[in-house]
C-alpha cells in the first residue's frame, strides 16, 4: 500500500500531502508520524496541505489527532498552506481544528515551530 513520505529536516518532520487520501491512508499517516516522532526525537511536525482541495471531517480529525499525539510526545505541530476555499468550507462545516497552529507556508511554518519550541523549552528549562 502506498504511504505518504515523511522527511526529516533538522529537528523537524515535514509531511507534504499530495494525494487525495482515503481513510486508511490517513490513519497510516497518523501512525507513521507518531512512530517517526519517537524514533527521530523530533521537536516539531510540519504538515503541508497546500495540495489538498478538500478537507473533510475525517481529515480534520486526523490533523487534530496528530497534533494531540505530538504534544504528548513533546513535539509541536503546524499545519500550513490551507487553500482559501477549503478554509471557507471548514468554517461553514463547523470544524474549527482547535489546538492546531497554522501558517501560510512552509517557511512561516518553520519559523512558527522554532519560536513555539523556544517558548516551551524556556518554560520547562
Amino acid at each position: 500500500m502506498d504511504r505518504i513520505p515523511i522527511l526529516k529536516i533538522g529537528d523537524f518532520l515535514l509531511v507534504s500531502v499530495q494525494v487525495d487520501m482515503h481513510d486508511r491512508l490517513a490513519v497510516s499517516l497518523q501512525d507513521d508520524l507518531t512512530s517517526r516522532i519517537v524514533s527521530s526525537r523530533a521537536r516539531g511536525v510540519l504538515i503541508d496541505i497546500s495540495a489538498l482541495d478538500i478537507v473533510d471531517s475525517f481529515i480534520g480529525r486526523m490533523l487534530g489527532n496528530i497534533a494531540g499525539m505530538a504534544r504528548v510526545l513533546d513535539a509541536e505541530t503546524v499545519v500550513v498552506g490551507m487553500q482559501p476555499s477549503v478554509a471557507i468550507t471548514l468554517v461553514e462545516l463547523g470544524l474549527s481544528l482547535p489546538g492546531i497552529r497554522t501558517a501560510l507556508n512552509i517557511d512561516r511554518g518553520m519559523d512558527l515551530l522554532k519560536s513555539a519550541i523556544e517558548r516551551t523549552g524556556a518554560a520547562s528549562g
Partner: protein
Amino acid sequence: MGVSTKRLFEIIQRHEDVLLSDWMRLQGESLASRRDRISESQLRANSQNFVMAFREALSAGNSSDTSRAEWGSLRKQLEDLSKQRAAQGFSSTETALFVLSFKQALFNTLRQEFSNDPASLVESAWAATEILDQLGLFISESYLKSRESVISRQQQELLELSTPVVELWTGILALPLIGTLDSSRTQVVMQNLLEAIVAKEADLAIIDITGVPTVDTLVAQHLLKTVAAARLMGADCIISGIRPQIAQTIIHLGVDLSAVITKATLADAFRLALKKKNLSIT
C-alpha cells in the same frame, strides 16, 4: 414539406441579388437611427452570409425544423450576430429585425414569383414563415443570453473595482470596506481578501469598516467567518473602524466578537500590526 423547402431553395437561388438588395433596403429603413453603430459593409457581409447559409440549409435537408443539424451553421451565425449586436448596444427588437425583415423581403420575392399561382404562394409562404419564425425567436433568445452575460460580467468588474485589497506593508494587508454591504457582495469581498492573503503571503489583514454605515447579522457573520477562515490559513485579522452605532448593533444581535481583535481606527490597527511584526515607525 420537402417540396416546399426545395422550391424555396430554387427561388432564392434564382432571385438572390434582388432578394439581398431588397432586404438591405428594408434593414436600412428600420435601422435608420443605428447607422452610427454599424457600417453598411458590415451589414452587407452579415446579410450575405445569412442568405448563403440559409440556402445551404434549405438544400441540405427537407425539413423546416431549424433545430436539426443542417441548420446548425446558420444558428451559429445568428448566435454570433446577436452577441455582436448586444455588445454594440442594439435592442432586442433591433436585433430580431435582422431576421424579420428578411422574411418580408422573401415574401416580396414570393409574391412576384407566384403572382398567378395563389396555391403555391400560400404553400411556400407558409414554409418560409415556419422557418423564419423559429429563427426570429432563436435570435431573440440568443440576444437575451448575451445581454445577461454582459450584465453579469459588468457587475463582477464593478464588484472587484469597488473592493480593492491594499498592501500597507510587507505582509500586512488592508481591506477598506465602503458603502452598504449586502450578503453576496460581502462573500465576494471576503474571498478576494483570502486569496490576497495567499498571493501576497500576508499573515496580517486589517478589515476596516469605517465606511460602512450599517452592519446586519448576515454581514457580521460573514466578517466573523472570514476571520475564522483566515486563521485556519495562518493569518490574523484585525477589524478596525467599528463606530459606536455598529458596536451597539453587534451587541444587540448577539454576535460574539470576543475572539477577534478590534481597533477603533485603521491607524491604530496598523500600529498594532507593525508591533506584532516587531516593527515600528521611527
